[in-house]
């Protein structure tokens, strides 16, 4: 139980959620600050561009805010936000038809990279990365979702099957075809 003098930053997740529900100013801001990077990365992997990922991230946090009363603490706040994020992204993929390749502007690619790479190496890597993300964005929806959840979120086949409402065998087949199509889209260079 948090006392009135306990700083927000020292509250555990349950107490922080309670603070949000008690209209404690800054409580939800702190939740956003702690989880904005992971939420953004999740959204970006689905839509492949910064602008849509930013919009989706906002949607995820708004839905989380509205559903705070439903948070029971049975899972971590990160997992709970993650499930909301996946649903938001899946709904976006369903609504956005036909699928279009993301267009990363030059500015989006020129981000600060703290790794020790020479500028030409970094530019080449950024270019290759942009091509890979563009190719993933062109995959059919279930193949894209399967590849993202398996590759970047290390979800089990069973968990992915639960998300997509399909079988483990179908998930593995989707993953197989996703990787095959990815190779066709990227060509021999990769």
């Amino acid at each position, binding site marked *: 139980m948090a006392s009135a003098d306990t700083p927000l930053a020292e509250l555990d997740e349950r107490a922080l959620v309670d603070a949000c529900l008690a209209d404690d100013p800054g409580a939800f801001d702190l939740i956003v600050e702690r989880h904005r990077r992971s939420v953004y990365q999740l959204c970006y992997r689905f839509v492949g561009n910064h602008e849509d990922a930013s919009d989706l991230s*906002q949607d995820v946090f708004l839905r989380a805010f509205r559903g705070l009363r439903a948070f029971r603490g049975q899972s971590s706040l990160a997992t*709970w936000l993650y499930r909301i994020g996946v*649903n938001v992204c899946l709904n976006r993929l369903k609504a956005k038809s036909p699928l279009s390749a993301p267009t990363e502007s030059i500015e989006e690619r020129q981000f600060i990279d703290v790794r020790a790479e020479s500028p030409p190496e970094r530019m080449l890597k950024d270019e290759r990365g942009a091509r890979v993300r563009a190719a993933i964005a062109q995959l059919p929806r279930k193949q894209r979702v399967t590849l993202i959840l398996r590759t970047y979120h290390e979800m089990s086949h069973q968990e992915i099957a639960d998300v997509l409402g399909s079988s483990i065998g179908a998930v593995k087949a989707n993953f197989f075809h996703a990787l095959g199509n990815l190779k066709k889209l990227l060509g021999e260079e990769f």
Partner: protein
Amino acid sequence: MHLNAVELIDVAEGTRSEASAPHLASCDECRRQLTDLRAMMSTAAAFDVPEPSPLFWDHLSERVRNVVAQDVPGRSLQDAATWRRLLMPLSAVAAASLIVAVVLSSRVLAPQSGAHGDAEKVALRTPLAPAPPSTTGAATDLFNDPASDDDLSLTLVASLTADLDLETAGEAGLAPHGSAEHAVTNMNDDELRELRRLLNEQLAPSGA
């Protein structure tokens, strides 16, 4: 017999050993497919989300803060604090209309003084005030309805309008004849309870 998609994925991910699939040793096609699968898995994993500008994170937090601050109508009726935030920015007339509609839907009080066409004066009271004697017997005092006693939000609204009567509201342009507010004052008990149920249902929060 060639390995199918599921079997190739199992071998590529390491959940099944190559030794358990002896066909691989003798089939160039299956070995090529296995090599391609592993290469693409590595490629996809190697190129993740590019890092946005450091300024982006605070901007995202600001956007979320703004949209959350505007999301007041999405909150529950049970939240009295939310009702205050909802009502404060409204104009006086809009706020009074909303108050009359909600309060009259659950707090029909004093009996009407006459038949339709006579001047109607309905006194709105707090839940703790005693009910006036009914002269027509038609109006039912819902103050004593135990189902409504624990509704803090409606208690708050009722207390804010304790001194408001329908005649005054009408003179202010609120609840004119034919309006929704006016219709509410002519609902029977069952209709008023149903209206309140519908209002609560519409304004209930949705979980994720």
